């Protein structure tokens, strides 16, 4: 493996090294050096972001990593001869992975600068927090790049364990502990189920590799002499898919695997909640696309029905329960459950038309994720800012916020409009693309459910807005938020607006990130 090949892993390597450095320095500096560790963490994330941006390549070039591939390192997708040699890749560094690197590092930066003030005084172990946070970001990226079931499982567990610890990070806080335990138990069960599903894949196809699994499902299993042993078994494949979906659905918080999320969101330190609402969700979608669109592409007519049902239940239930929530963190938990339902619409819309290999749905999901990233983090930064100043996380405590923090209140409206998909916001562009993808493949009913749900969601978003603007404040002390947090907020708001006004670069980014799926669609 040459240095040239390793360059394709530079974001991952940077994050690993910086995380280890942070842990090591934390042992020496202790609490006194936590501020400096925050800086190091931030620069590590920025560095990883820069490396990610440098890795975006215009063509279809990508790098594969595996134990025994004939080709290591950069592969040109345009050359079919080299394609066969990468079928057993463990890990791929393509534009698709890179897109998720972008999401992970940007989310990391925004959350991190939002967490500086929050952590101060809440925990004496800030250094550990920063290190674990970097590892969690790394885990998100590793999930997105995995093309092998074993690698997928390992990276998923990696993300799970770092998330459990981060969720329970406030040791003195009972709710934080409870959240962590609930999260852990739920995660343990679902990941075991997922592992069982993966073992069924192996049993059915003799491979853990998604491109190989896909090929066996399509052509049947052959023995070493080249004669067929048996064809792909659809019921078995669907059963395995459903079990695997359990684990992925847990990460994304799809209904019915969502029940951990409101408790975890409520109990976790708010910056961790923000991370949970973006990081695992994005990574889960990456895996979902890899497994469903590469591994089990041939059965898509069958699993489209499954995913449509999950999508409808997820967005409807998430939205309806959110209607009664008064804790803002729990409300955002249900909101993000519903958001995952909208994203699934795109995945379902991506899959039907293989004849012209339109991937409008996938790019729809990616655009949605990108819009959701900034919008949701923006909303969480405001929750953090208000919690920092007043400790309030309940809707009723948000009364008169326009008087106390006009900037935060106005921004909250903007982000909530974006979450509800009202133009001109990024959320509208995301919704537009997934609904268009659904209509393109004739999923009119699904799209109709989507739009009705976005109307329902507006109601509870504005239940938060209402007291902020219409009611008198209990006390008029202005809320000051740190300039770091304001900077994060400004980035999130600017991006939410820019994606809406100039969507073209982001659409192109999403489109070019799907080059990998050219492999599976041909």
């Amino acid at each position: 493996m040459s240095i040239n090949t390793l360059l394709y892993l530079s974001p991952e390597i940077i994050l690993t090294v910086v995380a280890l450095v942070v842990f090591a320095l934390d042992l020496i500096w202790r609490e006194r050096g936590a501020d400096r560790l925050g800086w190091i963490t931030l620069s590590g994330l920025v560095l990883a972001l820069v490396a990610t941006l440098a890795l975006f390549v215009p063509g279809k070039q990508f790098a594969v990593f595996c134990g025994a591939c004939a080709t290591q390192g950069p592969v040109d997708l345009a050359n079919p001869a080299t394609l066969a040699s990468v079928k057993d890749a463990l890990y791929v560094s393509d534009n698709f992975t890179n897109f998720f690197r972008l999401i992970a590092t940007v989310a990391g930066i925004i959350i991190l600068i939002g967490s500086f003030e929050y952590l101060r005084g809440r925990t004496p172990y800030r250094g550990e927090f920063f290190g674990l946070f970097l590892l969690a970001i790394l885990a998100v990226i590793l999930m997105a790049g995995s093309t092998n079931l074993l690698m997928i499982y390992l990276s998923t567990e990696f993300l799970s364990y770092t998330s459990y610890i981060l969720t329970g990070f406030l040791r003195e806080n009972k709710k934080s502990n409870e959240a962590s335990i609930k999260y852990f138990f739920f995660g343990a069960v679902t990941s075991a189920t997922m592992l069982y599903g993966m073992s069924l894949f192996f049993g059915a196809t003799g491979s853990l590799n998604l491109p190989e699994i896909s090929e066996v499902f399509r052509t049947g299993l052959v023995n070493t002499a080249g004669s067929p042993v048996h064809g792909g078994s659809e019921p078995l494949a669907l059963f395995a898919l459903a079990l695997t979906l359990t684990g992925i659905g847990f990460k994304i918080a799809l209904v019915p695997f969502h029940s951990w999320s409101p408790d975890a969101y409520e109990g976790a330190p708010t910056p961790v909640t923000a991370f949970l609402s973006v990081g695992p969700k994005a990574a889960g979608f990456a895996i979902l696309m890899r497994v469903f669109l590469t591994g089990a592409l041939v059965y898509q007519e069958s699993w489209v029905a499954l995913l449509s049902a999950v999508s409808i239940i997820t967005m409807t239930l998430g939205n309806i329960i959110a209607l009664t929530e008064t804790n803002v963190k729990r409300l955002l938990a249900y909101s993000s459950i519903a958001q995952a339902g909208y994203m699934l619409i795109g995945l379902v819309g991506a899959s039907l038309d293989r004849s012209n290999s339109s991937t409008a749905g996938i790019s729809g999901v990616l655009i949605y994720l990108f819009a959701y990233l900034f919008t949701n983090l923006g909303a969480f930064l405001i929750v953090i800012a208000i919690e920092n100043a007043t400790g309030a996380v309940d809707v009723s405590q948000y009364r008169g916020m326009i008087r106390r923090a006009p900037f935060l209140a106005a921004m909250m409206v903007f982000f909530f409009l974006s979450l509800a998909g009202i133009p001109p916001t990024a959320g509208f562009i995301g919704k537009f693309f997934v609904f268009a993808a659904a209509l393109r493949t004739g999923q009119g009913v699904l799209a109709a459910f989507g739009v009705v749900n976005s109307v329902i969601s507006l109601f509870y978003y504005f239940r938060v807005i209402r007291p902020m603007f219409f009611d008198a404040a209990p006390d008029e002390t202005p809320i000051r938020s740190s300039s770091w947090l304001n900077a994060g907020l400004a980035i999130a708001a600017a991006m939410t607006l820019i994606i809406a006004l100039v969507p073209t670069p982001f659409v192109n980014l999403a489109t070019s990130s799907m080059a990998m799926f050219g492999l599976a669609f041909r």
Partner: protein
Amino acid sequence: MLTAITFLPVIGAIIILFLPNNRAIKTFAIAWSLIPLIISIVVWVVLPTYPGGYFIYNGCGSAIANASANFHLNECASWIPAINVNYHLGADGISIPLIFLTTLLTTVGLYYSARVINERVREFFFLFLLLETGMLGVFVALDFFLFYIFWEVGLVPMYFLIGIFGHEEDRPQYSAIKFFLYTLAGSVFMLLSIIAIYLNSNPQSFDMTLAMQPGAHPFVNQFINNFSYATLAFIGFFLAFSIKVPLWPFHTWLPDAHTAAPTAGSVVLAGVLLKLGTYGYVRILMSVFPDVFRAAAGIIGTLAVISIVYGALVAMAQTDFKRLIAYSSVNHMGYVILGLAAAAALTPADYKNQNLVNSASTAVNGAVLEMFVHGIITGALFFLVGMLYERTHTRDLKVFGGLGAKVPVYAALLLLASFASLGLPALAGFVAEFLVLRGAYATLTTMSFFAVIGIVLTAAYFLWKVIQRVLLGTLNPTWINLPDLHGYEIITLVPLAILMILIGIYPQWIISTINDASVAILKMIGG
């Protein structure tokens, strides 16, 4: 030029955020709102000198340029090339009066509000100018995507205007969210219809002018040429527009929102926001889906007549002055829809009969003129209600009486606006309603007959409820010291009063503008 009109208000809104004090904000907002008003007058005046299909800037290619022959002052640039979204603006004789109406009512509304709004001033003027951009954008957008964005942009400021500045006893928060959710529920289905049009056109495009072209055009829209698909898309638009108009039975948000909104908010809500719906009827339902609209003309016409009669009857039952005026909007919007349905009902065979075509264009002229004059008249009426409320802090029609002698200027203006609204000849309302009924009689004869009953009812509730209860009878001693209108209130109402009389006596200047557009639309539909 249209870009300037549309985006100047939002620029002004942003500037307002940085102004130091309330006085500066008020002065600036009023002065700033004059700029779009002046431009809209200029546009109206210079319009005839520009040929149809003239492009100030065209970055969209010849197909769109050829399709835009009915529109003046086009501006077109590619916005999201990946999905062929264009920034395409243009105006015709239907949008021009509505643009003028919007800018006029905004300026007048801001002027009046500068006196009565003294709390949270910055927010009020910011929201109001933001709202203006949303409304103007709808009237000039010729791209479905752009149209949808402007359509939604207006919702949020209106929500806050109602919610923040409404009177506590009118449940403003409830009314505001009801308004928002109702409108949004309609418009999301419009979004699906827009996507459907895009996906089924070849080449795929969001351009309205292309979608308006008859089937023979190189731009083939499978949706619009396939009746059952087109019906689905039509329903999406129909819901969005009918909720906004509002057509019975989609009207239930209206009385709450109108009553709860602050005076200037009600003026713009009734004066302009309702017109977004009727404008959508002309611009999209009629021009893009003529076949479906023709098939549905009977149903829509019936709903319109129900709106007319039902609106009048419910208005008559009101004891709240403002609610009465609100229901009178349901009543009047019915005429607009009736006129449009009558024009849409023409079959291809009918287009060979010039008399029928003339009737149809008369009906469209009447409908569009009704949009304009309703904005002027109902705007004035809401101002008058607001002015009375500022003095008495009640709108209960039972407690007034005999104010005619006490406040003569107020009484004169209220009489003028009421008579204009109920359709007294030589005032604006009469011209519009007469044209609608004259035009509708040719195709929807029975419905026109029932609509005339509505006119009688309208006269009844204005004479009985408004004029008699407020102005005539014995003076309630509570109001013995009621002051008459102040100078600023008169200034607010004078432009509207002048237009009521002017259009009533000499409507030709506005009808000729509208007529060019309605003839062009009918020619396009009839082939």
